[in-house]
């Protein structure tokens, strides 16, 4: 076990960084809307509507966007917790879409998820040790003594103490519960972890603790993250590259500095300017882009560019034609007619 923990970090820009651990191509997830006694299908919620991207080994890809834009669904479909409607997800070159439960079970230890709500994701009637042991038993990890020794080590790794093993989730604070969730997620030595809003439910003073922990674990265990969040400031802090979603589609994807210093999509620009900065002098001098209206429903997305109903610079073309997903600079992708 310890060998894996001390595994050297793959250089972020070195050889290993250029091979994708995950390749997502034209991924779609539609949820049917059914009505009436015979449950007739009357439409679709286009939760994810054709996204393509890659995640490199050892990197953190931030996935941002407002609620309902399809971030969680993207994460779940990648891990095959939800079945894709269309498209491809390749993990280390191997196609996941279409695999049955048994085939996925073999791959499952490699890819794990950390959830937003540490209260809801931990069984209140199980001790911390049994919560973490569950996936270990399922995947036939060692004997009981070996498992307990590993659980003890895991608790240390996430900043808890071995004495916590026999306590129940309700005895812990929100931040500590998230540490338990993280311990369970890394128990099987995964390579790829989807973190779905892991700090959104935590107090401000605790968020930095959990983010620092995730960063340390990434270094020590050589993890690759898909970090889903609506907190653009935190994503700037910890991501290498960032993808922005709007109504089920990706509108921009770029290295973190490019995305924050020269955002190209009007939605990314508006999103940025909407985030308050904890500094009155900066706030005083800031120009805000205030978007009109509300986010439309993904069951009936606008024609053409789905952002055109709120876009401050939209032209008539925008309502007619879907903008192409183009690489405007090396590694900088945008879907906008004007970019």
């Amino acid at each position, binding site marked *: 076990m310890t060998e894996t923990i001390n595994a050297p970090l793959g250089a972020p820009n070195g050889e290993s960084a250029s091979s994708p651990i995950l390749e997502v191509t034209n991924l779609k997830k539609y949820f049917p809307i059914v009505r009436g006694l015979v449950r007739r299908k009357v439409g679709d919620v286009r939760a994810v509507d054709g996204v393509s991207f890659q995640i490199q080994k050892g990197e953190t890809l931030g996935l941002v966007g407002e609620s309902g834009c399809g971030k969680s669904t993207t994460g779940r479909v990648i891990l095959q917790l939800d079945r894709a409607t269309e498209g491809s997800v390749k993990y280390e070159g191997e196609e996941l879409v279409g695999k049955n439960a048994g085939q996925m079970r073999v791959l499952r230890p490699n890819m794990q998820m950390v959830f937003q709500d540490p209260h809801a994701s931990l069984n209140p009637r199980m001790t911390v040790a049994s919560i973490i042991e569950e996936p270990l038993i399922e995947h036939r990890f060692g004997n009981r003594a070996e498992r307990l020794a590993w659980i003890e080590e895991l608790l240390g790794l996430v900043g808890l103490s071995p004495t916590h093993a026999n306590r129940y989730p309700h005895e812990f604070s929100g931040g500590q519960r998230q540490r338990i969730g993280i311990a369970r997620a890394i128990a099987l030595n995964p390579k790829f972890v989807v973190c779905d809003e892991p700090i959104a439910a935590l107090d401000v003073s605790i968020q930095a603790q959990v983010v620092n922990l995730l960063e340390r674990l990434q270094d020590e265990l050589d993890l690759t993250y898909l970090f889903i969040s609506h907190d*653009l*400031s935190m994503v700037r802090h910890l991501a290498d590259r960032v993808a922005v979603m709007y109504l089920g589609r990706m509108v921009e994807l770029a290295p973190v500095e490019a995305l924050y210093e020269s955002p190209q999509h009007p939605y990314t620009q508006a999103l940025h*300017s909407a985030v308050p900065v904890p500094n009155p002098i900066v*706030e005083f001098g800031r120009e805000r882009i205030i978007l009109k209206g509300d986010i439309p429903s993904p069951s009936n997305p606008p024609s053409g560019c789905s952002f055109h109903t709120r876009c401050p610079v939209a032209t008539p073309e925008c309502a007619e034609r879907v903008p192409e997903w183009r690489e405007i600079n090396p590694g900088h992708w945008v879907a906008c007619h004007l970019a």
Partner: protein
Amino acid sequence: MVHAVNDVSFELRAGEFLGVVGESGSGKSVTMMSLLKLIPMPPGHIDAGVADFGEHDLLSIDAATLRSVRGGQIGFIFQDPMTSLNPVLTIGKQLTEPVMLHTGADRRAAKARVIELLDLVGIPDAEQRFKNYPHELSGGMRQRVMIAMALACEPKVIIADEPTTALDVTIQAQIIDLVKDLREKLNTAVIWITHDLGVVAGLADRVIVMYGGRIVEQSPVAELYARPAHPYTQGLLNSVPRIDQKGGSLTSIPGQPPSLLAEPVGCSFAPRCAYAFDRCLTETPVLSPVDLAGEHLSACFWDTAEGKERS
């Protein structure tokens, strides 16, 4: 026994925008409730009936009780408008009644006033929206209705408890823009309670920082962010990343927020404070000035700038 608000008192100046910052369990919301008795200073003149409110159990106040003390002096805006809006009444009806009560206007005049209010808070097609039920509106629109409702009786003070926390960031920006605009038009004092140091930075005149049921720091806004005096405020500012800067590592505050179930002995931040010394564990620091003008107050025995005990 919950020790939520320990001798919290402060003044609110006419037309002032006061930000109250704290994490969950810091006592922000309970403070809001107790404000109802603490407020009889300028500009909030509270009559005897409202002052009696202080005898209620501050933690178990329900929306109906709040509605009854709304009486025209204080307007409320909550995080979730659905808890304060009646789901089976149109928003028009819910707004008309208080306007009639407050102004003595008849139904026709009150309706005209309500449509004017809906317009003022940026609700398009106010005439149409008048007939809508709360569930027919988006979260952002419902929050605008709440603001209209809070303004209906021309209150001297508006208390907003995490009013944008449940909203997406582009909708939050719309609401903040509206509030800034309204402040220029109306001279209402606002108490804006939030966990977000960013939101109040651009809005508030003064900020109060709460921790463990107490005010730990209080200051004009620019001074607070430029020279935070309390170790908790400093820690909070160091632990949040900024969207406009490429950050280094985040300095987190160790430990957990305090439990309000235990009677605090000494400074409630001491268990997490890097500067804590023996005095902090036995004596409770009181708010005292850290600047010459006496506008910037901190409740801490240690002067972090000078690196010595405060005299």
